[in-house]
Structures are given as structure tokens and as C-alpha cells.
């Protein structure tokens, strides 16, 4: 549904077959682990069997002596990083922490922490050599959750961490080692007065488990450190340029000496931005003089990459009699994992972001624990926050006997609303997504039967802009080679090519997009933040406009007139005297009219307008087992303008199902020693197709004024609402209000049994 009358587009809004599709259904597409180089070695890694320990002895001599072993590396083989912060395009990173995460220095901080790596003639020899590495540990007590790690008596992971933003008397320390890495705080209005005036106040505490992005393709890197000092990295990554910079910084070589070649990427969801393997494979290549391929196994992926934080959240919301929110207070503590850097900032900014709240306060903490260093995962920080806020809001609606859609509409943020952390929204579609759900056939249908309930919830993500580059070469046959730096995780070659084609008025099939290496295109930020179709799309539109301008000049030469007499209209050029050449006709004559035409475009907007989604779910709870079955699911989202509706729906459906997994099953299980006991896909239970129904996606289109075609990023929002929507549905089905994630059968059974007492 569209909220404004849409311009008539020829390409945008259609559903062409993606350009890389045939390669991906025939097995020809080359992913990170598919590259084979002459003389290539295979590498394996030693990982910590402890959650927290000092390394007291490390001897690799026996591993080095095994026939077939070509190189062994530990952190001692890498240059010292000193104490420095480096801007890596995704915020500044402490290089000492990044280096110690790649290969542990004197301490291991989580089960699976990488310690050493071996390159050998076969993977089996490399694995055998890893077992020959002699290592001794002094095991230290671990701390696994944010609240425990904030206590003064907790074991401390990093001796160099102090609390950024420390306030006297609060958690952490300004001058002593602490696990509390930072404090975030903002407020508006007067919450004391707000709560004093409130007719209804609900306050709840929430705990959410650590979960993993769960991409099917493990991390990988194949690296050649050539004799000329140039390093080439073939890998699957969400961002070749950040991978290049992280690799160069960790090796302390000039960034231009590293070339990152993007292979097809088998899922990322935020987890393939940080670098783990390329510097290690690079050093193994340098020492052996051979290209080295290093691929994680699934256990390593779950032990040592990803996750998004487990969290503790307390939310208190007060409304007047009509349901209007007049005060809100939140306290959030997010697990950073081994090193500082959880998405506590976005968590704090998102928790009240869907609503217009006059009096609000948010306080948040980033806390180190003995788990892998957390990474972005689809709207990082926002899902945890939405689970808390959206279930509290439903409780209030129940007390006031308000329809859950109506209380959301009553309080919906809109253009001009000031978010608690400061910014005012431009045109947004929050209310429109709630209306779309309220008016949907799903929401309007009855839901008969025992133990069944319906729930809705809303979610928000900022969506970033950042930098992108596109180059377009016009061929004599009138087709265009489009080069871009954005790695394509879910069809963005096509969504970018479509915007380019629309701008020039040519068929999408005549644009041939390629994702190219860091030597072949201008700087481009990561495929993340729901930015690619937005920002690389703007770059593509700019490149198309550049070509338009050049074609006007060439046409002027052709007609022996001046460019101001020529206009580019509807896929061709028209002279003021009425003569016309189509795009193809003009392209065929380029070599006679001055030579090749190459267009370029960049973009660099900081932000988009922000995106919202509202989901509706029907569940049935088995009162004997506590198992929750999803009966029906509908997700509405404001996508600005849907460029390729199939892939917009796909993002919404995929995000919703990840959210369903987070809600019902997924969690890292650590034992009392801090060891991860479910590092397989059998025990880390992601949804299968037998667990979920069809996911109905409703595309709401409230164009974002900051994009030429009104695009809003789509990818991240849809993971935010599911846990809260499902919790609300469970409450309506069986009367228990869940406050922990996942809402797995034992947890629901425990609540049902409490209810019976």
C-alpha cells in the first residue's frame, strides 16, 4: 500500500530476475571457501578450552616439526598495536583489543578464543599439528552475565578497561580495571512529575539470552602475501574496505598494499564485518611463501564469532487514563563479550523510539563478560529493547482495556517527534505500519480455540547512509557494466541496477552489475545498517545522471549544436529541433563522438529517515509441554519505496523468522565453567521450515525524502518486533507474561505451573 501517489516508474517496483541468480542455483557462484589457488595451503586454529585463563606456556615446536606443516603463528608473530583507537568506518576500535581477539595475547577471555594457527599441505595435517601445540593455562573464574560482571567483586577481564562516562557512586570505575566499559545516559522532560501524574504505571525486568546471527556460511579467508609485499585477501565479507583496513592495521602495513577480493557471501546479518581470519592467514602466507586458506568450522563460528548480547533490561512506563504515555524510564545492561563494544548505544536510543514521550530517561551500560566479543546482528540492540518496551505497553493496554493497535497509534512517533536521545524525526511511517496491521485480514479475523492468542508489536531501526561508490561503463551495444563496492548478500546487485536503469530509462536487464575488489572501485562502507539499496542506490543514480550529462554533450556533437539544445528524456536524447536518438543508437556512435563514456557516482549521507515495522502473530501454546506453535504471521513495514518487492518481502520474512528463533528457541548455553555447550546447529536450534508458517509481508510505502526514489532500508527492522509480539500472544493465549528470552518450553512450563499454584 502506498501513502502517497507514486510516480509512475518503469523499472522500480517490478520483479526482474536477479543478475547473480543463475550462478546461485547451479552451484557456479564462488563463495569464500570455494576458491582454489595454485600451491594453496590449508590452515587450522588452536582455540581455548577455557572461558577465562592466563596462558602460562605456549610451545609450537612439535607442531612445526610435523612433516607437511609449513608455518605456525601465534600473537607473538604480529606487530604490537600499542594503545590506539582507529576509525574503521563502523566507529572507532581499540586495536589492542581487536588484535587480542584475532589471536589471544597472554590471556584467553572466552571458550573458543583463538590462540595459534597452523598452515599445512592438507587440512588434516594442519588439524593434527594443532593438537601437537603444547599449552598450559592458569584457569581463572569466569563471569557470564552483565549484572554479575558489574559487581565490584566480579573477576575482571581486561586490565585496561575503565568506565567511559563514569559517574561517582555508579557501576564501574574511572581509575581501576573494571568490566563496565561505558555508561550511556539521556533524558528529556521531567520523569518524576510524569510518573506522579500517571494513572497507570507498569514496571518489569527482562533477561534475554545471547544469540548468534547463524549465517550458514562459516567465516573464511584465503590470503597471498606476495614477494612484492602486496597482500591479496579473497574472502566473504560484508565490507571489503573495512576488511582491508582492519587487516592492514593489524599487520601494520599500508592500506593500499592490501587488496580484498569479495567472494560471494553466505549470510552475514552484521556478523561478517569484524575481521578474524585474514591477518592470521596473511601471516601464515608470509611465513610459508604460499597462499593460505583458513576456514572456520561450525563450532568455531558459534564459539568465537557473532553473537549479539544477552541483556538485562528494566522498563517502567506510565500513561494517563486515555493510554497516552507521559513518562518512561529504562535501565539496560548489555553484554559486550570479551572486549568493550556491545550495541548498548542503539539499544538505549531504540527502546522508546517508536513513541512520542514527553518525559523519559534512559541509562545503559556496556559490560565485558567471558563470552565472544559481540557483533552487530540485524538492528543491533533494538530487538532486546523492543521485547521489553512492547510487552510493557501491552500490559498497560490490557489494564486500560485498550486495543493494542490503538495504544500504539495513540502514542506513535511521527514527523517532528523528538526521540529521547535528541534527534527529531523527518517523515516516517510508524503509524502507517500499525494501521496496516490493524486493518489487515489477519488482525480482523477471529482466532477461536483454547490456548490460542494473538499479539502485535512494533520495532524501529535508524538505517544509516554512509559512503558508497559506483562506476558505470557504457558499452557500444547500449548496455552498461556497473561496478560497485557493496557486497551482495540478498539481491542488492539487482536493487542497485534497477535504480540505475530507472534513472536512464533503460531495461534493468541491460545493466550488468559486478561487485569488485578494493583496487577497482572507490571507497564503499559495509553492506549493513540497511544502507545498501539506499546509499549505493544513490551512488548509482548519481552515476546514471553523470552518464546522462555526458550523453547530452555527445548528442550535441552529433547534431552539431550546443548541449543546452539537447535534453535527456525517456531513455534517449532529444534535440530542440525535434531530432531524437535512443540510448542504444547514441551508444553505438560513441567512438565517433569522442570515445568511451564512463559515469561515476558517490554518496555520503550520514543517515536515513528511519524505518518502522509492526507484526501480528497468532500462537497456540501446548499446556502440557510449554511449546509454542506459530499459527499465522503477518509483518507490515514501511519500506519507503520498494525497489524490488520480492526481495523486500524476503528481507521482512527472513528477519521475522530470525526474530521467531530468538523469541522461542535460540540461546547460547554456558555451563558453570563458562563453556559453551551447544556449539552445533543441532543444539543451537534455529527455526526450520517445519517450525514456521508462511510469513505474510505487507509493504507500506512512505517515501523517505532523503532518497531520490524514496527508498528506506528494509533489512533490519523486521527482527525487532517478533519476540515482543510472540510474548504478547502467549500472554493472551494462556495468561502468563514472559519476561525472559528465549521463551522455550521449560520457561513457559515454569510460568504455567506457577500460575496453577
Amino acid at each position, binding site marked *: 500500500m502506498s501513502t502517497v501517489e507514486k510516480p509512475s516508474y518503469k523499472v522500480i517496483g517490478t*520483479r526482474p*530476475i*536477479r543478475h*547473480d*541468480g*543463475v550462478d*546461485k*542455483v*547451479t*552451484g*557456479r*557462484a*564462488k*563463495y569464500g*571457501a*570455494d576458491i*582454489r589457488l595454485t600451491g594453496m595451503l590449508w590452515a587450522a586454529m588452536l582455540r581455548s578450552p577455557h572461558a577465562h585463563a592466563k596462558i602460562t606456556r605456549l610451545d609450537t615446536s612439535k607442531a612445526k616439526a610435523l612433516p607437511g606443516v609449513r608455518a605456525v603463528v601465534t600473537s607473538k608473530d604480529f606487530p604490537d598495536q600499542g594503545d590506539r583507537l582507529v576509525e574503521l568506518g563502523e566507529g572507532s576500535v581499540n586495536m589492542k583489543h581487536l588484535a587480542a581477539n584475532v589471536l589471544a595475547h597472554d590471556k584467553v577471555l572466552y571458550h573458543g578464543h583463538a590462540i595459534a594457527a597452523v598452515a599445512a599441505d592438507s*587440512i*588434516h595435517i594442519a588439524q593434527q599439528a594443532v593438537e601437537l601445540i603444547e599449552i598450559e593455562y592458569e584457569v581463572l573464574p569466569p563471569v557470564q552475565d552483565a549484572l554479575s560482571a558489574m559487581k565490584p567483586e566480579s573477576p575482571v577481564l581486561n586490565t585496561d578497561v575503565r568506565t567511559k562516562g563514569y559517574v561517582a557512586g555508579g557501576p564501574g570505575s574511572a581509575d581501576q580495571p573494571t568490566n563496565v566499559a561505558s555508561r550511556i545516559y539521556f533524558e528529556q522532560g521531567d520523569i518524576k512529575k510524569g510518573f506522579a501524574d500517571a494513572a497507570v504505571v507498569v514496571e518489569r525486568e527482562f533477561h534475554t539470552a545471547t544469540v548468534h*546471527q*547463524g*549465517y*550458514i*556460511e*562459516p567465516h573464511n579467508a584465503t590470503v597471498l602475501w606476495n614477494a612484492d609485499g602486496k597482500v591479496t585477501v579473497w574472502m566473504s565479507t560484508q565490507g571489503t574496505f573495512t576488511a582491508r583496513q582492519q587487516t592492514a592495521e593489524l599487520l601494520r602495513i599500508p592500506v593500499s598494499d592490501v587488496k580484498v577480493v569479495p567472494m*560471494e*557471501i*553466505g*549470510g*552475514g*546479518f552484521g556478523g561478517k564485518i569484524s575481521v578474524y581470519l585474514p591477518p592470521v592467514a596473511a601471516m601464515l602466507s608470509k611465513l610459508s611463501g604460499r597462499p593460505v586458506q583458513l576456514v572456520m*568450522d*561450525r563450532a568455531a563460528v558459534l564459539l568465537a564469532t557473532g553473537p549479539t548480547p544477552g541483556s538485562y533490561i528494566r522498563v517502567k512506563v506510565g500513561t494517563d487514563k486515555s493510554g497516552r504515555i507521559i513518562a518512561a524510564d529504562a535501565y539496560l545492561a548489555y553484554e559486550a563479550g570479551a572486549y568493550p563494544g556491545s550495541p548498548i548505544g542503539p539499544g538505549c536510543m531504540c527502546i522508546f523510539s517508536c513513541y512520542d514521550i514527553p518525559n523519559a530517561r534512559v541509562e545503559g551500560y556496556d559490560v565485558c563478560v567471558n563470552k565472544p566479543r559481540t557483533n552487530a546482528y540485524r538492528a543491533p540492540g533494538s530487538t532486546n529493547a523492543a521485547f521489553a518496551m512492547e510487552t510493557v505497553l501491552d500490559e498497560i493496554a490490557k489494564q486500560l482495556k485498550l486495543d493494542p493497535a490503538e495504544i500504539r497509534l495513540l502514542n506513535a512517533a511521527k514527523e517532528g517527534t523528538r526521540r529521547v536521545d535528541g534527534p527529531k524525526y523527518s517523515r516516517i511511517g510508524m503509524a502507517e505500519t500499525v494501521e496496516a496491521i490493524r486493518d489487515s485480514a489477519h488482525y480482523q479475523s477471529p482466532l477461536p480455540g483454547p490456548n490460542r492468542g494473538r499479539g502485535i508489536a512494533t520495532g524501529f531501526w535508524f538505517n544509516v547512509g554512509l559512503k558508497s561508490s559506483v562506476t558505470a561503463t557504457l558499452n557500444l551495444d547500449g548496455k552498461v557494466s556497473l561496478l560497485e563496492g557493496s557486497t551482495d*548478500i*540478498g*539481491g542488492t546487485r539487482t536493487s542497485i541496477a534497477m535504480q540505475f536503469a530507472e534513472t536512464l530509462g533503460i531495461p534493468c536487464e541491460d545493466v550488468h552489475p559486478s561487485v569488485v575488489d578494493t583496487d577497482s572501485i572507490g571507497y564503499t562502507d559495509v553492506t549493513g545498517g540497511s544502507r545498501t539499496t539506499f546509499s549505493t542506490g544513490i551512488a548509482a543514480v548519481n552515476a546514471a545522471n553523470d552518464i546522462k550529462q555526458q550523453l547530452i554533450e555527445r548528442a550535441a556533437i552529433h547534431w552539431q549544436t550546443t548541449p543546452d539544445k539537447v535534453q535527456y528524456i525517456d531513455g534517449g536524447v532529444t534535440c530542440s529541433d525535434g531530432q531524437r536518438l535512443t540510448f542504444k543508437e547514441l551508444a553505438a556512435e560513441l567512438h565517433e563522438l569522442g570515445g568511451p563514456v564512463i559515469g561515476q557516482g558517490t554518496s555520503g549521507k550520514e543517515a536515513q529517515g528511519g524505518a518502522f515495522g509492526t507484526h501480528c502473530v497468532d500462537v497456540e501454546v501446548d499446556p502440557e509441554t510449554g511449546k509454542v506453535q506459530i499459527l499465522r504471521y503477518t509483518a507490515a513495514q514501511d519500506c519507503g519505496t520498494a525497489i524490488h518487492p*520480492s*526481495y523486500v*518481502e*524476503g*528481507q521482512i*520474512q*527472513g*528477519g*521475522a*523468522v*530470525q526474530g521467531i528463533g530468538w523469541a522461542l528457541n535460540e540461546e547460547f548455553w554456558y555451563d558453570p565453567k563458562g563453556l559453551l555447550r551447544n556449539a*552445533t*546447529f*543441532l543444539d543451537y536450534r*534455529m*527455526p*526450520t*521450515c*517445519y*517450525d*514456521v508458517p*508462511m*510469513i505474510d509481508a505487507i509493504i507500506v510505502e512512505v517515501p523517505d525524502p532523503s532518497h531520490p526514489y524514496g527508498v528506506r532500508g528494509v533489512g533490519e527492522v523486521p527482527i525487532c518486533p517478533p519476540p515482543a509480539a510472540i510474548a504478547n500472544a502467549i500472554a493472551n493465549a494462556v495468561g502468563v507474561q514472559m519476561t525472559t528470552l528465549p521463551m522455550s518450553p521449560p520457561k513457559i512450563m515454569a510460568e504455567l505451573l506457577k500460575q496453577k499454584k
Partner: protein
Amino acid sequence: MAKKRIVSTTINGDAVEFLCEPRQTLLEILRDVLEMTGTKEGCGNGNCGSCTVLMNGKPVTSCLVLGVEAEGVELRTIEGVARGSELDEVQQAFLEGAALQCGICTPGFIMQTEALLACNPTPTEEEIRFHLAGNLCRCTGYDKIVRAVQCAAERRAGACHK
């Protein structure tokens, strides 16, 4: 290390011989010895289905099959699904139905679908979901995959009626 064995097998209709260490999996043989990298490794322990191939017509996770077990069998991999340069109905349905995003699980899903449609040409949604439950996809939420399988089944049925 035990000596390598010579294994004689049939892959996508062609007679193939390869040298194999007893410890090597069929997946490793396909990818690293025969350089058929269309079959993907997602987990290495049979939980994700990305490495699904057909062995004598039955779907197997090739990471749980030893290379030497391929002796005398008929294997079909993603590389053998298309008829020359023409995609088969399942590939075409996945492509047109946007049933893939990153695409890493796609070869496994296509092989599993081939196995399903070979024994049940008109599966219900429930049967499709049950049959594909051993294949994990993290991108799509399965909606478009299930629809693609339905579409492929319909097209294949249509082709049979001709």
C-alpha cells in the same frame, strides 16, 4: 596415515575415479579433490543440509558420508541438475520466485527438493515443510522456498501432461 584408495563412482551420469584417503568425507572429495564446489559446507556434522547430494537417488548429507562409500554408487550433485544450459524446473522456480538471498543453502535445498519431487510429485505444504526441515536457511524465512517448491511441482506436473 592409511594409504589412499581408488574409488570408482558415477557423478551426474559420468564415470569418475578418484584417489581418496579413508578419512576423507564425500564432501571433501567433491569440493577439494574433484573441485566441484557447488556443494557447500555449512556445519560439517549433518545438521544444516547445505551439502546435500543424491546417492542412488536418496538425499544424503555428504559431510556424513565417507569418500570410499561412493564406490559403485550413482551420485547427483547441484552441478548435474540443469539439462545442459537449460535450468530444470526446481532451479527455475527458485530463481523466479526469489527463493534465495545469500544463496549458500540453495544447492542443498534444490537437491532436497529434487529428492522430494522424485518420490512425491504433488506434495502438500505440510509435506514440503516436513521434507525440507533438515535444510537450514537463515535468510528467507522459508516462505519463498516453500512457494518455489510448490511452483516447481506444478510446472513439472504440467510438463508431464503435455
